[in-house]
């Protein structure tokens, strides 16, 4: 239902938007296909491609919102969000500290570590593998909607309860991936360790953990975004009056959608940076994995 009949863009407008989209798309495709000899140019290109893609998305978003006259309370245009963002920096900063630094990071570390340790325990001790793993799976889908209020009850309103929620959310992906990863070492490579009469610990540290790293990093990546979502959503269920989740739920109620999206933008930037750092570390640690040795051509 279009309640706002004020600005009804014609077909030419939409055709123009489509053509613009197509043009940028083709240009970007060509750009990313470009092979350059100089590594500097290549790096520049690698940055430019997603940036252009993103700018295109934002541009389209802006055009569609303004073109259709979509009301602010449904979807604000990027320009509105930007305006809100730069005028609310202190609030955003306080929210970021509360949610990201106090809840997401510790929760991500503890949860991933816990999943990893349980995986190791299960691996080291067959009894646990059969007894604990099925129970570990029970943690798989503890719904945040149910857990968050309980955690608030147990750990109070502040960030501690958010950390607990994040721990619960990130535990399982790591458990599953670590268990799978620990099985990933090849048979011959294991035989080699056996032939050395290597201890369990040696085999673990020198063979099975390195071989498990691609899986473990997958879990860390998945967890990085889960932790962010978890911490934000957990704040819907009780919080001191600061934090990204608090702000989002409150502003949704107030229909301050520009502020909601400003927070989302902060979350997206922080989350992407977080993910990016993990991906960089991954590349450094699992440089040997075939996915980083793919042939240049083809």
């Amino acid at each position, binding site marked *: 239902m279009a309640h706002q009949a004020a600005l009804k863009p014609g077909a030419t407008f939409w055709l123009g938007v489509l053509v613009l989209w197509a043009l940028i798309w083709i240009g970007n495709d060509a750009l990313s296909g470009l092979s350059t000899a100089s590594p500097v140019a290549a790096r520049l290109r690698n940055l430019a491609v997603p940036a252009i893609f993103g700018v295109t998305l934002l541009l389209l978003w802006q055009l569609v919102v303004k073109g259709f006259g979509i009301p602010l309370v449904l979807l604000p245009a990027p320009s509105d969000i930007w305006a809100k963002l730069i005028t609310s920096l202190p609030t955003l900063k306080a929210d970021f500290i509360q949610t990201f630094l106090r809840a997401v990071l510790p929760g991500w570390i503890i949860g991933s570590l816990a999943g990893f340790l349980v995986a190791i325990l299960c691996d080291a001790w067959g009894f646990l593998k059969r*007894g604990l793993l099925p129970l570990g799976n029970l943690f798989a889908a*503890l719904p945040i909607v149910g857990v968050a209020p309980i955690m608030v009850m147990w750990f109070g309103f502040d960030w501690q309860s958010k950390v607990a929620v994040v721990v619960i959310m990130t535990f399982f992906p790591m458990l599953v991936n670590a268990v799978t990863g620990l099985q990933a070492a090849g048979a011959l490579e294991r035989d080699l360790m056996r032939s050395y009469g290597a201890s369990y610990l040696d085999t673990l540290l020198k063979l099975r953990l390195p071989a498990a790293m691609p899986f473990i990093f997958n879990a860390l990546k998945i967890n990085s975004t889960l932790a962010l979502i978890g911490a934000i959503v957990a704040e819907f269920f009780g919080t001191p009056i600061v934090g990204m989740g608090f702000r989002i739920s409150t502003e949704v109620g107030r229909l301050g959608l520009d502020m909601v999206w400003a927070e989302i933008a902060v979350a997206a930037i922080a989350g992407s940076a977080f993910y990016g750092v993990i991906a960089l570390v991954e590349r450094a640690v699992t440089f040997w994995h075939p996915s980083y040795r793919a042939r240049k051509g083809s």
Partner: protein
Amino acid sequence: MTLAATRSRPSLAGAFAHGSTLPVTIIVLIVIVVWYLAAIPMNRVLSEPLIAAAGGGLGNTLSISWSLPRPVLPAPHQVLIELWNTVFIVAPWRPKSLLYHCWVTLSSTLLGFILGTLLGVGLAIAIVHVKALSRSLMPWIIASQTIPILAIAPMVIVVLGSIGLTGLLPKSLISMYLCFFPVTIGMVKGLASPDPMQLDLMRTYNASTAQVLWKLRWPAALPFLFASLKVAIAIALVGAIVGELPTGAQAGIGARLLNGSYYGQTQQIWAALVAAAVMSSGLVWLVGFIERRVALAMGGRP
């Protein structure tokens, strides 16, 4: 270990003969004991005045701590009683039955999981093959996952509702949105994991991209796929539950949790939580079962 299990082909019947029953029982027993013990200090705020009123003593402490109407941590039997009452006493198609709500949630979970898996795999395939996509799409997929779904879910529901999409699909879409990501991450890695030599072999055959995908990348990615699917199906369940809230929370585990929480029915929350956990571990087990089957068919060592 004296409990060493003999290796056998995985089968439904075999799962019980596997020797995991005993370890699980033992660990469950340990958990229950710890749970009962933990309930005493955790409920202290609420129980202390009552215990004092009843005259103190160990007997009173235990009986009161384990039977509070709105405990911080209900005792296991309180949860079990609630489960019994809502699962076995009520007809499964009545809104009072937990089974009814499980089914509501399960249906959108499964649909969301299937959609999410398809989307996740599709994106991964696209990313692995099209350079422009891997550079431009991946950062935005990541960004998309940092959007707190609960914040935009209402808008999504509103928008979908205005184009006539209601019922199962909106919830499933939220579930899909949350669960495609682990699949994408896992498969981007998995599809890129064949040995360079194995890829070279395909090159010498001048195999088409589709052939390389289907005959090499896909089988090589399966360990990654299954690890991802286990995570994804669990997240799909969380997504389905979360998705029930902005659709008016009328039925399903999520509605149950929300209302239980809203009306302070602690046992009901815990029963719903247990139901969700059992459901998810069942689903994860199912994926694991299929994984073992597939591994065997693909010549995996037992």
